[in-house]
């Protein structure tokens, strides 16, 4: 079975990467797709609290 059908365009949007640090020092990376969000905010509208930096 050969499926060569690709979508006309991608619907997932560009990937943005937001790196945070947990209280115990481990990193936690959010990968978000779609429309870019405002600086300092997540897609859910939450305010970014920790030392977030892009990797």
């Amino acid at each position, binding site marked *: *079975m050969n499926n060569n*059908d690709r979508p006309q365009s991608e619907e997932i949007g560009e990937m943005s990467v937001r790196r945070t640090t947990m209280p115990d020092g481990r990193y*936690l990376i959010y990968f978000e797709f779609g429309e870019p969000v405002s600086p300092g905010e997540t897609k859910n509208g939450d305010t970014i609290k920790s030392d977030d930096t892009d990797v």
Partner: protein
Amino acid sequence: MSELRFNPLRGEWLATATHRQDRTFLPPPGFCPLCPTQEGGFPTEIPESSYDIVAFENRFPSLLSRPPEPAIDPTDLYAVEPSRGVCEVVVYTPEHASTLAQQPVEQLLKLVRVWRNRFEELDALDFVNYVFIFENKGEVVGVTLHHPHGQIYAYPFVPPIIARELEQTRRHFETTGGCLLCDIVGEEANFGARIVVENDSFMAYIPFFARYPFETHLAAKRHIQAFTDLSRDEELDLASILKQLLSAFDRIFEMPFPYVMAIHQRPSDGGPYDHYHFHIEFYPPMRTVSKLKYLAGSEIGAGMFINDTLPEQKAEELRKLVEPVKWKNQN
């Protein structure tokens, strides 16, 4: 306590990680550490109330970027090293009661991009020599959390199965001038009966030498070595064929099909690996709806697997269960 000990008899490293005995084991509903944290609810590993995909350092790692000194001294015979490396958890979706197979193909494409990102970053670390991306799915393969997720181990050495594949592919290249995986894909294409599904960029097949009834290999048709070599079209095709294959797995016994998924890429030690070839290996332990393929005397003690089935027959069964992929934005 955590350290790497060398087995001189087999020529391979193993990790001790005694703290992992205390890791979270099949928590009750409402206490999943991989779910988003809800207001007033159990604080999970992920503080936000929703996410697409997240990756984080494992709370119970067997390898650490800043490991403790080994608790035991080496001898002339027994080498010991700090367990330096990275262990990450990759959470595929915020939906707890789901599987990778049940996710829309668009989510698999997101995951392919995340895998590529994690490989690229870990590959660049000077103490990492191999980035191993994998998933354990199902309690029968040892899953301790049901939430859909995979893991990444960034080892300070090339692990033995990869090392053996590297040696075999190097020998084949020196003998024939060709790539072993390219030749395997070519032979499977010519034979046909072991192919499960294929598209322009990838082929999934139950190999001639399958050790498990539904062992399936998914190989790139182009000779590439790692996620970072994938074109945009190949990323789409990988998401597409993963969706088809994993969905077909779930249809075999009409249940979420357990497996170990092992993504095999080139090492990260800067060596010349043009002879190696990107592929993914799936090891489902089930041989019937009620029977598991156990590793026993011959497999564990001598390393020779006994497969109670024929790959050609199992590939036919699986091939019949493959369905087209539906992208949201497809004519």
